[in-house]
């Protein structure tokens, strides 16, 4: 698998406080990588490191195969765009001039594609309006527009839905999906709005106290969070025989517990199990969401 970004045991300290503690993550090419963690977990710090705003205390990362200590890492950075925390825009400039300024910073010979970018983010009609008169959502979109100048292959968005109204959140989500699907842009998106992230992400990285607790694809997460009935029985071998006969998906967890992935007729199942001399001790419907999975992963009690 091709990776856009790989970090290796990254550490970062602010005075005596360790913000990142040996964080290793892998962002596959073409993915929308959801970077999940509570406030202060180290999400923004990691983004600052990979954007070159800060230097790691130890560890390293590779961006498009180039190590952060390589001199030509700047070549890899040319291929990325980012919105870190708040959109980086000149408030006393119009949307159009903000984009032109970024064209100059990149040294692009002409302003070709400027109108297309403004159209893409839905700011074409307000191109002559000063950014200070923009709503938060419009500023966020302008920030993304600036990050898109120069046709980057990798977009880093730090909490893009922060402070947006529901309509704004939907607009940003659709924009990210459009960029990923139509332009094959790899997106690293940090958020603690899990429900929102679950509508976008193809891969997840869960961060807590500066460490990556778990990294998985959306498919793996879906399997973990699949709706099921957790059954406690006296003999799971007998349960397996019965479920195989009924052609029902299941996972044996222990000698006495198993997850059954179907809405079963309880009377039929218990009757069939009785024939196999297997008792049903308990049954519990489980519907694990991304949220509950995250809480179980990070430790809800500790963070409550």
């Amino acid at each position, binding site marked *: 698998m091709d990776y856009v970004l790989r970090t290796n045991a990254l550490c970062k300290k*602010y005075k005596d406080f360790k913000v990142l503690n040996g964080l290793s993550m892998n962002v596959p090419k073409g993915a929308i990588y959801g970077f999940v963690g509570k406030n202060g977990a180290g999400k923004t710090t990691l983004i*600052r490191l990979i*954007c*070159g*705003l*800060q*230097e790691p205390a130890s560890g390293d990362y590779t961006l498009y195969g180039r190590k952060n200590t390589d001199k030509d*890492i*700047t*070549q*890899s*950075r*040319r291929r*990325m*765009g*980012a919105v*870190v*925390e*708040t*959109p*980086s*825009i*000149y*408030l*006393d*400039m119009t949307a159009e*001039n903000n984009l*032109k*300024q*970024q064209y*100059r*910073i*990149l*040294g692009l010979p002409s302003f070709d594609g400027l109108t297309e970018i403004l159209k893409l983010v839905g700011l074409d009609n307000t191109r002559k309006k000063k950014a200070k008169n923009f709503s938060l959502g419009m500023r966020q979109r302008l920030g993304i527009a*600036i*990050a898109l100048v*120069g046709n980057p292959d990798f977009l880093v968005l730090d909490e893009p839905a922060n402070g947006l109204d529901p309509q704004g959140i939907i607009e940003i989500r659709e924009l990210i999906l459009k960029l990923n699907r139509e332009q094959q842009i790899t997106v690293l998106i940090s958020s603690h709005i899990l429900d929102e992230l679950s509508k976008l992400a193809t891969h997840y990285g869960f961060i807590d106290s500066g460490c990556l607790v778990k990294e998985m694809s959306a498919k793996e997460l879906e399997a973990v969070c699949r709706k099921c009935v957790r059954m406690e029985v006296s003999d799971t071998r007998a349960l397996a025989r019965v479920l195989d006969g009924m052609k029902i998906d299941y996972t044996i967890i222990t000698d006495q517990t198993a997850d059954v992935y179907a809405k079963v007729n309880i009377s039929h199942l218990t009757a069939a199990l009785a024939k196999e001399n297997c008792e049903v001790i308990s049954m519990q419907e489980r519907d694990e969401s991304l949220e509950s999975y995250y809480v179980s992963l990070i430790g809800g009690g500790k963070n409550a």
Partner: protein
Amino acid sequence: MRKLLSANFSRLWRDKIFWICMGTMLIYSVVYMLNGCRQAVVDMSEYNYGLEEYYFHFALSIGMFCALFSSMFFGTEYSDGTIRNKIIVGHTKTDIYIASLITTVTATLLMMLAWLIGALVAIPTLGVWKMTVLELFLYLLIAVMFVMAFSGICTFVCMTVTNKAYIVMISMLLILGLLIFTSMLYNGLSQPETISGVQITLNGMEMSKPSANPNYVSGAMRKVYDFILDFLPTGQGLRMWQLEIVHPVRMIISSVIIMLLTTFYGIFIFKKKNLR
């Protein structure tokens, strides 16, 4: 670097603070020179004066204008977060620092030029310069060099302090503090070696015998004062104001040293700075 300069200059030409500073410098010079002309006519000294009597009086205020402009211009990069856009796309912190320095030097030199052009309004009354062409060029060269030193100091503050309000406050207070400090030194050097008071005797008021002035700075301390005045850009400004340039080479070398020191140390700190 060229890309960063192109971006900085394109912003400079639209920057309100820059044009306000330019306009203020121009109006200030015209009003100041016309007032100087009026005074010279009242004193009937216009025939003794040359244009240079007031022409270099920008030297004391240019540092404040440099501090005001640079702190507002580059403070915005931090307050709006736009400095991040430059780093994210791969520009090095060294390039960003040097591009900022070049922008500050250019803007401050343009402000100085605005004064120098505006000050020509005094030619009909005071005539042209009485100093030689070589002296005039030397004064202008020293002015250009201390503008670069001021720019070095201001860029250092702008790039190493990341809060706009602090940048403005520190830049202005630093230049003002240097100005007050050098004025005190200059005042110390201006003290007469001896003083004589007035005595009231039976014969009426008489001048007392001259006695040593306790405030007179002598010996090694006088040399130190003298050196500091030549070293600091505000001191050089004072010397230029008074048309008392004695060590031009020392002044030029000092400006180069200040600019190089602030730039090297500034880049060192800026590279280590955790930008947000």
